[in-house]
């Protein structure tokens, strides 16, 4: 009913006097055609959208801070992460001038709160911010270095999987035909192999260490990247602008690099962002079951594993590394979600 009334009233507009109108000016018309907003590139546009997403921005800042801390770990760490001070073993956290249980060096033993630092004759000016482990190593320094190792593994694995996956997907999708067919059959067979199996077999064959883990992770993670890139390439290569480039005589290779690759950027970045937390998790998982980074070096995974063994009596050894790791994982996932919304491949399809 409402809309009907409106319609009627619109139809019966009373007389319009000519002085309501202004004559169109030639200059004005040209002005109207002008685009006042600056023209944004794809990345600028996405960045603008990402900036509006507060959660993603906070995650990004947090990740940048954590990454910087881990890069500058040698400068920041108060102690050598592998230096053992047996007399200072199993100390709870203590921070100077803070008297809150949990940060004042006290611990409950036999239903009584006792000052562990006093009991062990630790000098007053020696503080372990996050306590020490069973060999008297400073947990704070170990976490800094552990984060460094975990992030290094994740970043390098992500970079390798990006290189392999994008190359494979791009080739397969762009060349098409028989090559694509063969490459896809290979992928099909490989995707039936559980990641876990490949990673564990690789670790058994290679010497345990950072690089074996990186290689094992890179060997497994690239498959989904290759698939996504191929699907996107197949779609993109039938677009008009590719046809135009072809008609203008551009070589296949330069079309692939100039027109296809930049348009793949969104999906690739999203995929990389999701592969980083999964690499961090896998490294921690391997360390947790005992085939990760060999001692005395630590990653977040080995720290959690060590802490788990005594988590009831020395909870700080388990929960601080766990908290750092969870924080990194949550931030990466939130940022990746934010990036996906910003790039919004669904809208672009």
């Amino acid at each position, binding site marked *: 009913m409402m809309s009907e009334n409106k319609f009627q009233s619109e139809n019966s507009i009373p007389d319009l006097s000519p002085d309501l109108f202004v004559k169109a000016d030639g200059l004005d018309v040209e002005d109207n055609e002008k685009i006042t907003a600056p023209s944004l590139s794809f990345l600028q546009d996405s960045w603008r959208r990402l900036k509006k997403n507060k959660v993603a921005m906070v995650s990004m800042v947090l990740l940048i801070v954590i990454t910087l801390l881990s890069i500058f770990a040698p400068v920041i760490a108060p102690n050598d992460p592998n230096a053992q001070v047996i007399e200072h073993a199993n100390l709870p956290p203590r921070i100077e001038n803070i008297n809150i249980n949990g940060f004042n060096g006290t611990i409950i033993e036999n239903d009584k709160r006792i000052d562990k630092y006093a009991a062990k004759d630790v000098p007053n000016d020696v503080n372990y911010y996050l306590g020490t482990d069973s060999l008297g190593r400073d947990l704070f320094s170990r976490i800094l270095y552990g984060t460094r190792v975990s992030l290094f593994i994740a970043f390098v694995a992500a970079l390798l999987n990006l290189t392999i996956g994008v190359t494979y997907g791009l080739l397969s999708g762009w060349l098409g035909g028989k090559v694509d067919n063969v490459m896809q*059959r290979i992928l*099909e*067979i490989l*995707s*039936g*192999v*559980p*990641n*876990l*199996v490949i990673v*564990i*077999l690789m670790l*058994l*064959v290679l010497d345990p260490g950072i690089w074996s883990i990186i290689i094992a992770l890179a060997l497994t993670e690239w498959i989904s990247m290759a698939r996504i890139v191929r699907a996107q390439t197949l779609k993109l290569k039938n677009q008009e602008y590719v046809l135009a480039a072809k008609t203008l005589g551009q070589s296949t290779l330069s079309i692939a690099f100039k027109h296809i690759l930049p348009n793949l950027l969104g999906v690739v970045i999203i995929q990389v962002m999701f592969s980083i*937390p999964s690499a961090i*998790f896998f490294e*921690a*998982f391997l360390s*947790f*079951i*005992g*085939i990760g980074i060999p001692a005395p070096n630590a990653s977040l995974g080995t720290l*959690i594993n060590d802490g*788990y063994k005594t*988590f*009831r009596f020395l909870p700080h050894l*388990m929960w601080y590394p*766990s908290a750092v*790791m*969870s924080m990194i*994982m*949550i931030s*990466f*996932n*939130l940022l990746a*979600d934010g990036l996906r919304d910003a790039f919004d491949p669904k809208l672009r399809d």
Partner: protein
Amino acid sequence: MKSYAKYIGKRVLYMLLTLFLIASITFFLMKLLPGTPYSNQDKLSEEQIAIMDEKYGLNEPVIVQYGIYIFGLATGDLGTSFQFHNTPVSDLISYRIGPSAQIGIQAVVVGTLLGIVLGVVSAMKQGTWVDTTATLTAIVGRSIPNFVFAVLLQLVFGVWLRWFPIALWTGFASSILPSMALAISPLADSARFMRTEMVDVLSSDYVELAKAKGLSKWEVAFKHGIRNALIPLITLLGPMAVALMTGSMVIENIFAIPGIGEQFVKSILTNDYPTIMGVTMLYSLLLVSVILLVDILYGIIDPRIRVATEGGK
């Protein structure tokens, strides 16, 4: 339909090829590995080693061993464990598959159901605090490593509240905490997936039509939304199977469950090659079968996919 059967036949062929490839790769990798299967080999005389080699078939040329292994696999013989009192690997696995299957199935069922509820509710209440909470739960569930979550459960329900045993295998009560720890990843994944699908379906034309017919919001959701949003959820089964395998290795260790995952970790740490190969084959068979099952089911449930594959061939 005939060409659909052909398509499935082709998929089965690929599946067998994959398994054969995995078997071959694991076999030759294991042959490459340093170390010896016998503990204290230095103390054994050459005759003793020769006798042992003969017993385990290690005196044959590698290629013959390979043939024996592949033939054994085809007949279900996975060889004999080096570590666990000469038990055949297939016995070791069949003895331990029960607990693993139990917590695995419980985790998938509970996790997926809760995930679906969470996803549907947050899609229906888009943009409200309910949505935010549900999305946050899903992200936290996806981010926190399951072993950290498992220890947290142990601490809260085992140590503080004393509701469930901490680490013990006596039946259903002791399967609750490990199932919960394993359920977190299917829960997070299906919640996230379901939300996206629901949002998609709710903005489709037939939902608009149903609304126009005067159905209430929740009626529309149940009669038209959830049903259609559920279909793509099947594709999550593959990743879920992988997550369960990985998860069970740590969860079974934390909760002391005599399952496959715990066995696998033990075998890896003690270089028990036949068992490692056996479990590897089991995991691969499981994953390949799930992938095949998903493909077949998908074709049956959603005729559009079937038509597409038929058209393509």
